[in-house]
């Protein structure tokens, strides 16, 4: 690592101020950022830890939505989000216990790794991302691999999840990293179905519109049997070709629907 200063503010306002310094960077659970620093691929002047900010913690229901603090760890969510079992189950499948005890919801969706799990749940639930400055709809938030609507120094303080009637996340593991080679989050609401796919696309997490339409009229695995996504635009690497990932999108979606019904 290169040398850096360390700040641990107690409020979002102080954190925003600290982040306004040149080259200051937020530190969530450090599960992505610390390895990056160790490899000397980043050189922040100050790390602003978000772990001491009480207003970014907690899980509570509000107007029919489940509000989860941006500093909540994956383990917190796996244990505390009983009200949204599909989300709790997703959090419980991220990484290993050490990663889950430190990595945070805010950090995960700020990073927006194309193979990360949370983006699928956030987009698939049609959640709202609450930041230090504003509220952003999930459909506007994810903008491609490692790219989001966040501005410099903007902090994800919470995410508000609408609660679907039924939902499920199916993750097919990349054998080495055990991130999602393909992960599909399916959620059925009274007014429609959302299908969000992670791991597969060069554009990062995306909604599979054709499947959503088919499932809206018939929420069954059979309803999407004939549907496929284009291999073009999928990720192709040493763990799977584009065609394989496109195929897995179909398989995992069907499994998610079957498990959710």
């Amino acid at each position, binding site marked *: 690592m290169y040398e850096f200063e360390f700040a641990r503010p107690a409020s979002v306002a102080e954190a925003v101020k600290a982040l306004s310094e040149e080259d200051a960077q937020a530190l969530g659970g450090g599960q992505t950022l610390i390895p990056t620093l160790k490899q000397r691929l980043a050189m922040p002047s100050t790390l602003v830890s978000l772990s001491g900010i009480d207003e970014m913690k907690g899980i509570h229901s509000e107007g029919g939505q489940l509000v989860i603090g941006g500093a909540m760890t994956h383990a917190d969510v796996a244990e505390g989000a009983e009200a949204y079992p599909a989300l709790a189950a997703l959090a419980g499948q991220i990484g290993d216990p050490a990663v889950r005890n430190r990595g945070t919801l805010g950090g995960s969706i700020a990073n927006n790794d194309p193979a990360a799990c949370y983006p699928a749940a956030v987009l698939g639930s049609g959640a709202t991302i609450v930041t230090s400055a504003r509220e952003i709809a999930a459909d506007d938030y994810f903008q491609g691999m490692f790219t989001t609507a966040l501005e410099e120094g903007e902090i994800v303080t919470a995410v508000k999840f609408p609660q679907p009637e039924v939902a499920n996340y199916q993750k097919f593991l990349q054998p080495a990293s055990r991130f999602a080679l393909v992960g599909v989050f399916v959620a059925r609401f009274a007014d429609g179905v959302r299908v969000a796919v992670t791991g597969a696309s060069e554009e990062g997490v995306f909604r599979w519109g054709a499947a959503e339409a088919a499932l809206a009229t018939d929420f069954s695995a059979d309803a999407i049997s004939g549907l496929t996504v284009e291999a073009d635009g999928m990720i192709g690497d040493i763990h799977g*070709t584009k065609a394989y990932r496109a195929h897995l999108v179909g*398989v995992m979606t069907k499994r998610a629907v079957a498990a959710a019904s």
Partner: protein
Amino acid sequence: MPKDIDAKESGIGAASKRREDIRFLSGTGNYTDDINVNGQAYVHFLRSDVAHGRITSLDTAAAAGMPGVLRVFTGADFEAVGGLPCGWQVTDRFGEVMQEPAHPVLAQGKVRHVGDPIAAVVAATAEQARDAAEAIELDIEDLPAVVDMKAALAEDAPKVHDDLTSNLCYDWGFVEENKEAVAKAFDEAAHVTTLELVNNRLVANPMEPRVAVGDFNRATGESTLYTTSQNPHVIRLLMGAFVLGIPEHKLRVVAPDVGGGFGSKIFHYAEEAFCTFAAKALNRAVKWTSSRSEAFMSDAHGRDHVTKIELALDADNNFTALRTDTHANMGAYLSTFAPSVPTWLHGTLMAGNYKTPLIYVNVKAVFTNTVPVDAYRGAGRPEATYQLERVIDKAARELNVDPIALRRQNFITEFPYATPVAVEYDTGDYVATMDKLEEIADIKGFDGRRTESEKAGKLRGLGVNCYIEACGIAPSNLVGQLGARAGLYESATVRVNATGGIVVMTGSHSHGQGHETSFPQVISEMIGIPEDMVEIEHGDTANTPMGMGTYGSRSLAVGGSAMVKATEKIINKAKKIAAHLMEASDADVELKDGQFSIAGTDKSVAWGDVTLAAYVPHNYPLEEIEPGLEETAFYDPANFTYPAGAYACEVEVDPDTGKVTIERFAAADDFGNVVNPMIVDGQVHGGLGQGIGQALLEGCVYDEDGQLLSASFMDYAMPRADDVPFYQVDHSCQTPCTHNPLGVKGCGEAGAIGSPPAVVNAVVDALRSAGKDVTHIDMPLTPARVWAAMQS
């Protein structure tokens, strides 16, 4: 030797608990990185990030001025020093010796693989060294890289080494004289099965990365190297004599606790030579601790063979001939034992468990712009086993015969058996291990289990194979003829203390095998004293006799035999002392349960009385024997040992995703006599885990520019606990080795050798059960590859 192994509480055959685990599991081990020498400095290596290039400028002035920096070294500092030596010279099929390029400690003019060290910064702290390394100004003119072996042999291919005539290290034929006869047998065959396959490149990834601490004592002129090594004496000889020119009496090499090696810590590496050299140059200890990222691009890799194998059969399905054509990747330089792996450790095993009368093996070893490749758990023998057992399976399917029956029909059944590939198996019983396998794997129940899997929408497959390996390397005069530049004996000094306790200083070394537990079991059995009266010391050239170290499942078979010989000398001398004390003839003295007695009398003296007399020789035959009780023995084996066995794997394949899960795995091994069945189980489990890792998960991948794509655990898949099943292992079939005193054969590599073909055979079987015309899938059998195979 006792076969009723569970009944014993101590000595040979007892499942004694591993005493070293107390320190390993409680965080009190003493690994190389735990060693810190007063005032030590730290080195950081600047490594090439391109696969092939010419260094056009290298300016270290800015780096040298950075805080804490003691000195920046480059290739120029090593011009007067030797390169890293290769310990084995192969002679090709035309009688020419192999092409042997120079292997500088730091790059001289050219870089030849990603990770090739170019410069080294020594500074007061590791961070300062790393900061300064970033300030080195380096220009490299990129040259086209050669990665694919066949492309590397093309006429116009870029040369990895400009001073060699081509990228071909050697073209080896074995047995060259048989070539015509083999061709004729193929012409006359009733059936020929052909298979092309890849034995995937692996990264050893021991849990402990490599570490080296060089130290120098100005007052005595002595250098010391602490290093993560499987064979400190070999490192002392290679580095002292060939690289740095330090005689043995001025060079001490210490390998303390070693956290796994799997072969990768046999070899002499540049970083070891560097730290020793720099410590002397700076008069200050210099430490290097590899990061995991560095390990991926600087530890020798394993395997990486591309093979075409052909099996000829007569009309009755007897194997009549075997022919192989292999390209073996050497990487950019010749690592210490690299040339021996695809030749003498591979070609000599091609007969397997079968009486194929004619065999011809051709191996072309090739230089490429990749990390050097050398021995990795099994070394050559897994490559041989994989080809042979895959082609037999394919032949069985082509001929529509039961793969187990086809194997049984061709088994060698009489011993000793001289193979057509120059080795003589002393003992074995392949029918017995196959019988045992069928029992423990419940082969009969497979059809029922397949039906159950099919009901659940899964494809189930069964894969069976045999293996044979040559362990206990090796008769020195034989390997000398084959090109080894070292002897391969082993040594032990048995030091008995005055009050009867024993310290054994062995030339073997343990990097996880449990020698501190199993070696004392042997001595306990021989003398009849408790195991805890015996301690094992290893790893320090200052207090152990010259030995060749641990690899090739040789420690008990060769190192243990040296210890037995030394202990026999101890017992002979102790009997003379006991005879004196009992006023009897030493020919009449018997030793049992730690008591010396005279048959037919009630005279006896205890072990401790005799050892005390040896060191307090008041009543002692000083005119006949010397006081003291300490003996050294060297043991050079008469032959290799030949462990063998039969393995069965059952898999389920998810037809929707191609994901393979291993449902059952059974291993029936013949290791000869077994000293500690629990340690043997553990060795087999570990080997199976690595073999399953190779078959399903692990693959080291370069892109066409020579960039390492699988450069971390994010992309290189190591097996985890939930990737492997509960194993059924059995080693009750025991045909003792005929030529070593313990009758032991070695068990360290078997699991890794025998398991990959079982897994692949099982997956192919599963796919065929669903009507897929799949004959082969290259390892690792990732979901993506299996799915792709199902689509075709």
